[in-house]
């Protein structure tokens, strides 16, 4: 009885040691990868902060219409970019580390997430470009409308901005395959709604403004004929 108990205990101990022995290298690799990822993330964050500050990224970002106020404690766009890069590298390190653990579930999860990363990145790029384009076009429309003497210039500007943003969000969501059918319907309804709203606003609310603008064009006021140069 005692011998059997000792044997069973020995076998259990051997199994535990074997398990620990097979798990330990993976865990060490996991910790090493996490440590390396952490160091790389720290370096990238510091490098980006320094480089972007030197390039006066905050001021330029303001000029492009990108504001980080409320997103970071300092409200700095350079810090925001550095933080995004930091967390991206850290998460990638964590996912890579999970594959090293050789555990079925975490590995499967990590692989599927890693396969999804390119789509996520592409969607993120679409969103960033869409946001930049929306702000740029909104500003261009605002300035042109003001120079044409349109009293509701901001209305047009905001309309253009949201149209471009809606298109960008729809494209990004479509890219990562979230609710394609629902999205298509929602996009068509929202886009159509925005266009209809603008048409109604111009047709009913701003009818006088449009009429005045057209009559101004047809009348060709005297100071428009000035040779300014």
């Amino acid at each position: 009885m005692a011998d059997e108990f000792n044997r069973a205990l020995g076998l259990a101990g051997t199994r535990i040691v074997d398990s620990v022995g097979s798990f330990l290298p993976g865990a060490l690799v996991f910790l090493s990868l996490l440590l390396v990822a952490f160091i790389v993330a720290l370096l990238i964050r510091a490098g980006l902060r320094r480089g972007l500050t030197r390039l006066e990224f905050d001021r330029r970002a303001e000029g492009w219409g990108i504001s980080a106020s409320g997103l970071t404690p300092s409200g700095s766009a350079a810090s925001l970019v550095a933080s995004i890069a930091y967390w991206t590298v850290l998460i990638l390190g964590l996912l890579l580390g999970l594959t090293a653990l050789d555990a079925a579930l975490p590995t499967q999860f990590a692989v599927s997430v890693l396969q999804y990363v390119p789509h996520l990145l592409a969607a993120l790029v679409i969103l960033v470009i869409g946001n930049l384009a929306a702000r740029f076009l909104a500003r261009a429309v605002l300035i042109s409308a003001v120079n044409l003497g349109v009293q509701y210039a901001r209305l047009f500007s905001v309309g253009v901005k949201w149209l471009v943003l809606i298109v960008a969000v729809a494209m990004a969501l479509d890219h990562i395959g979230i609710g394609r059918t629902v999205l298509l319907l929602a996009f068509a309804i929202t886009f159509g709604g925005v266009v209809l709203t603008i048409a109604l606003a111009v047709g009913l609310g701003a009818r006088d403004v449009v009429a005045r603008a057209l009559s101004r064009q047809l009348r060709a006021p005297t100071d428009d004929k000035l040779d300014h140069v």
Partner: protein
Amino acid sequence: MPDETADPAVVAGLLTYQDAATVGAAARAVREGLAAHFAGVPTRMLIVDVGSTDGTVALVREAFGGAADVIEVAPHRSAADLLDVPYHGIPGKARALRAVLSTALDLKARACIVFDGGVRTLTGEWVASLARPILDDQLDFVSPFFSRPPFEGALTKGLVYPVIRALYGVRLHQPAAAEFACSSGLAGHWLRTDLWERSGAQAGIDIWLTTAAAAGDFRVAEVPLGVRAHGTRGEEALDLGATLAQVVGALFADMERHARVWHRSQTRVPVRRLPSPAEAVRPAAAAVDADRLVEAFRLGYRELRDIWTFVLPPRTIVELKKALDQPAREFRLADDLWARIVYDFAIGYRMRAVARDHLLRSLVPLYSGWLASYAGQVRDASPEEGDRRVEALAEAFENQKAYLIARWRWPERLRIG
């Protein structure tokens, strides 16, 4: 009879583009001017067309076909020229001017004069008035001074002239004029620079040639030529925003290029104001709708203030806010304030605080405000009082030059204040 095989003393270039209505009279005036005022001196006339499709070239050939002293020059053309509409209306103008200057140098001409084929009031007197100082007085650059109603050329009077005068100490009242005369030395200097290939050259070349002469220690003069009337093209096809973006953009780009020169320049470059047989004719004044200009300024303040804050310090924004409540007839924008606004926009352009085209176009409401203020001051004034008003404004730009240099050197330091 001048020897037609000898090196010409004077070369006159006539730039044309869709000028069928005016080119005949303009070309005859130039040729007659050369014949009447430079008898016995070898001369050449260059016809430089940049792609007219209205029969301009055929008209010139018909009038002067076979004449040994008339040379047709075909400048290189770019496909991009068809897309850009410059405010002066001549696509690829820089290439055309380069062809004129190069040909003049190749012909070993001592003086080169340039005219615009679209001008209706061009006379033979202009040829003599522009070229004589180059030949007789050894000057390098002669710029015209045209009589203009008070509001005509307001952008030149209120911005381009004061800025160039403040930066280089050169009092050339119409630095963007299409007509000018230059010596072979200055033509060679221009051709050696890289300004021909720079972005924006096709629109800004007139200003750049003037500033290159001003920055290069050349002897300059200004000669009154009377009234300049031209056919419809160019600026009339563009809105004010596009015109202002081209002209002011060219000026600001030039400020970047010559920053070292104007930072050091403190002396006043003497500009000879030459007499001219042209009578001091004052053309009828065009009307300006001050109410509409002030309304444009107010709309701009309301909607574009957020963009202006990228380049204008808070103090300036506060001063603009104070100006909002003035009635249109009494609307005034102080000269110092307008000078600082222009300089701040120049710095914003240099720093790319906002997309450059957006920044330049957002200046339109501020310019409208200044024009309303200027119109209120010169509406009932005599022409001499109007000229004095422009000179007072230019002095304000000179007084604010230290502000410009300080902000140019330390833009971040002054951003907050």
